[in-house]
């Protein structure tokens, strides 16, 4: 009953004219970002962040969250029509979506992607609505050791799930922790690693760092490569899937939604890995797996539902525990802190307007996306034809002005530019920015909880191992850390390596 009352209260927040407008801007921009290859949700949110500092936190969060789940809708359009994923979570949609377009079935592919996304988004919001408050109540029992262990587990998971190299992921997490100590030590008021540079006294700002690592570096990467964006020339007709399409897609949408939501909760999995798992699962369960990759509607319905549900699932740990599941949630967590809020298990109780307002806005936003997207597809197709040479000067200009307007300080712009180049080099040398960003955001909390635990226990590490929840998190972290070694041993025993 409580939940029903709370969500009704949420609707009173979300349905005000101002918040409806913010949700609309968020989902519209999200779709645009999803449609455009070369700019992802992390870059877009960090670009938009400075403009929200003077607005109401609830409206701002409604807009930024809308942008995030809106991206999952837009990505499918580019995947289906151009065979380039508009954003990473739509890679799998290219496999069958583009083939469907080639066979003259672009309409049903776009249609089922939109309807599937709507159904998945709605299912996932229901999950978020029930799960986040429960998890937050449970987390109220957490003390410093539990929080420390939970954060260690989150960082380890994100680093472990790096797509390129676990070792490099761990290195970036360690580097992020080092960068997080820059600035004033809250315990002793000593300046650390600031070198008399004024802008570093308050620490490395998360916003300029993220704008650099995701926004600027993406532009630099794209400037170096030529994106071939030839939109598939076909008449898009019959966006409403047929009865047969629905029969074929219903179970994949349901499975994709559930899988996406639950995997989205796990830190580090983000939205990309679940879509691959969902596609694999459908192929495995299908009576005609050989048709996957040739333009089967299940191959579009499942991953498109999955990425939307995962995007919403990502919010669970952020709202209930204050622990971000991926780099984008880390940015949103940073935003909450900038708005003067305290992310953590008390957030839902202290600011019900924020949590329930955002949750209710997700229902509204999903409906807006469904109503908006199908009629707007011709407009997205036109936008796809805008050359990147025109777009990137604008993107760069927004990042430069955005970072300056944070504190009216050139120092922030320099930090952003430096991290832009660093992000570019990281990408070229196959390092991922996500573990670094997560560690940078969680670093101060991690240090605070570690030092507090040690102060309380008189310098003993035993609470980390004797308190069951803390110990469980650390055991999971340890298992994650040693699993690559076990896998190596298994491969060695199978004689995979030369000479063994």
């Amino acid at each position, binding site marked *: 009953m409580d939940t029903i009352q709370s969500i009704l209260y949420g609707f009173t927040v979300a349905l005000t004219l101002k918040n409806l407008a913010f949700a609309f801007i968020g989902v519209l921009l999200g779709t645009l970002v999803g449609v455009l290859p070369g700019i992802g949700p992390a870059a877009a949110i960090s670009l938009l962040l400075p403009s929200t500092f003077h607005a109401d936190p609830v409206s701002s969060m409604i807009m930024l969250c809308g942008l995030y789940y809106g991206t999952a809708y837009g990505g499918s359009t580019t995947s289906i029509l151009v065979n380039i994923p508009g954003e990473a979570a739509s890679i799998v949609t290219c496999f069958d979506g583009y083939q469907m377009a080639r066979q003259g079935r672009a309409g049903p592919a776009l249609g089922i992607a939109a309807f599937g996304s709507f159904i998945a988004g709605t299912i996932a919001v229901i999950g978020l609505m029930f799960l986040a408050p429960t998890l937050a109540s449970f987390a109220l029992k957490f003390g410093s050791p539990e929080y420390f262990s939970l954060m260690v587990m989150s960082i380890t998971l994100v680093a472990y799930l790096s797509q390129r190299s676990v070792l490099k992921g761990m290195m970036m997490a360690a580097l992020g922790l080092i960068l997080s100590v820059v600035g004033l030590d809250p315990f002793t008021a000593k300046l650390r690693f600031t070198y008399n540079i004024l802008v570093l006294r308050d620490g490395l700002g998360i916003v300029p760092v993220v704008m650099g690592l995701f926004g600027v570096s993406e532009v630099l990467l794209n400037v170096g490569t030529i994106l071939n964006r030839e939109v598939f020339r076909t008449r898009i007709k019959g966006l409403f899937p047929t009865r047969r399409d629905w029969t074929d897609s219903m179970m994949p949408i349901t499975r994709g939604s559930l899988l996406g939501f639950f995997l989205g909760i796990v830190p580090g999995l983000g939205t990309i890995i679940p879509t691959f798992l969902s596609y694999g699962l459908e192929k495995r369960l299908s009576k005609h797996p050989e048709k996957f990759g040739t333009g089967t509607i299940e191959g579009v319905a499942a991953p498109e539902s999955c990425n939307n549900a995962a995007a919403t699932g990502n919010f669970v740990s952020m709202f209930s525990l204050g622990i971000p599941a991926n780099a984008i949630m880390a940015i949103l967590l940073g935003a909450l802190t900038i708005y003067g809020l305290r992310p953590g298990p008390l957030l839902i109780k202290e600011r019900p307007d924020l949590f329930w307002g955002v949750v209710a806005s997700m229902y509204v936003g999903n409906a807006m996306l469904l109503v908006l997207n199908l009629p707007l597809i011709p407009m997205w197709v036109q936008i796809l034809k805008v050359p990147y040479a025109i777009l*990137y000067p604008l993107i760069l200009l927004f990042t*430069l002005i955005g970072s300056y307007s944070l504190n009216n300080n050139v120092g922030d712009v320099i930090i952003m530019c430096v991290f832009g180049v660093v992000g570019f080099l990281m990408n070229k040398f196959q390092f991922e920015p996500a573990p670094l960003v997560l560690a940078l955001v969680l670093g101060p909390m991690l240090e605070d909880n570690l030092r507090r635990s040690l102060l309380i226990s008189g310098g003993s590490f035993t609470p980390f191992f004797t308190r069951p929840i803390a110990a469980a998190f650390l055991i999971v972290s340890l298992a994650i850390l040693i699993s690559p070694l076990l896998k190596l041993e298994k491969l060695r025993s199978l004689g995979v390596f030369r000479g063994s």
Partner: protein
Amino acid sequence: MIKADRWIGLLLALLSLYVCWESVRLGLGTYHRPGSGFFSFYAGIVLGALSLVLLCLALFRDLKAGEAWGGWRRILLVAMAMFGFTLLLERLGFLIITFVFVWFLLKVVERRGWAFSLGVAVLVAGASYAVFDLWLKAQLPAGLLGN
């Protein structure tokens, strides 16, 4: 694993050494009362250990050549334009530097025509002045035009 990993491993190992040294200087404290350098010291140790693992693996494994580095000229020019914008923003002012920045990217980097690049630069500078300065009231430096 790519060839550059040897140098990256070495570089990050040296960085972690510096972090540990600086952390000791800040004061490690004790386990009872951790000092300012306590956390960064251990983070530095972790980074150092992992960097050495990367270095060792890169020394003893067959390495790939790594990604191709195409479009160098354009990347360098865009980076220069960004840093130029940053350094000249307060001196020249937001409106002038925005115009120069967009014109430079379109004319010099993208090699578009004079009329097109000048036209778009004027349009973007005007539109961003209207949005950021007049509408959002972001206090952007007026620079030369302020005098």
